[in-house]
């Protein structure tokens, strides 16, 4: 059966027409952590590559036989200076990637007790 491909909206290249794209990203900060949050709809865990490259956080997809062109445009983020590059974790849920970076303990704000007389 041949497959008819059109789009309800005006522009389309095919069925999965939302790719490739430059994923939108939010950067969040708390006292202990940074979160890099990216919208990656239709991207599976297996094809996603999250790495620290040349001191930058890099998010990209690995091309495969089905997708010779990368699904997303690579995003690179300057790492904040107070980040512990070893303490990094990433989670992909409902098409949203959250990369957690932990601040170095020495960089965290500390409350200094004031000794009064």
């Amino acid at each position: 059966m041949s497959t008819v491909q059109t789009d309800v909206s005006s522009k389309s290249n095919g069925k999965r027409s939302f790719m490739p794209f430059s994923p939108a990203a939010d950067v969040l900060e708390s006292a202990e952590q940074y979160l890099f949050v990216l919208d990656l709809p239709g991207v599976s865990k297996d094809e996603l590559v999250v790495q620290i490259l040349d001191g930058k956080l890099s998010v990209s997809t690995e091309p495969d036989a089905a997708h010779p062109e990368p699904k997303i445009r690579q995003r690179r983020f300057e790492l904040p200076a107070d980040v512990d590059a070893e303490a990094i974790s990433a989670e992909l849920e409902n098409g949203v990637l959250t990369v957690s970076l932990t601040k170095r303990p020495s960089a965290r704000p500390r409350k200094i007790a004031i000794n009064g007389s």
Partner: protein
Amino acid sequence: MLSHAPELALYGLSAPHTLRSLAQLRDDIDRFWPLPARARAEEPSVQPRLAFTDTGDALEYSVALPGCALEQMEITATEDSLSIAARRDLTLPDGFALRSRERRAWALSRHIDLPCKVSADDVQATYAQGVLSVRLPKAPEAKPRRIEVRGVTQEVAS
């Protein structure tokens, strides 16, 4: 409906005076502008794009809705229409402040007149990897049928 002032408050920013004035203006508009027209005007500028495929036996629609909670989606189908309503709110986890923002909260509301009749009872919707897919099997009378071509033997005049 998107409301911008509470969203700003959510991210720990104070709404400037001009925003309060805008909210006041909107309240004034609300009183005499009919609701359907207003809903159209408040649609986000970047609408999630809907892809459509006709597989022969079924119609398939898919749309990228990353980070959408299942309870924030509502899909209804009749034998000749499909409605998709979904929204995403961006909330900050406790203790976090926003350093930079590109992602958007949005509200999607689409009503589609289907190109053929479907079996509304058998419509399936799945949400995987942030992509919503709706499959609507065609009604029996709308499915393509293979038509047998019969040869007609011509009588040869003697």
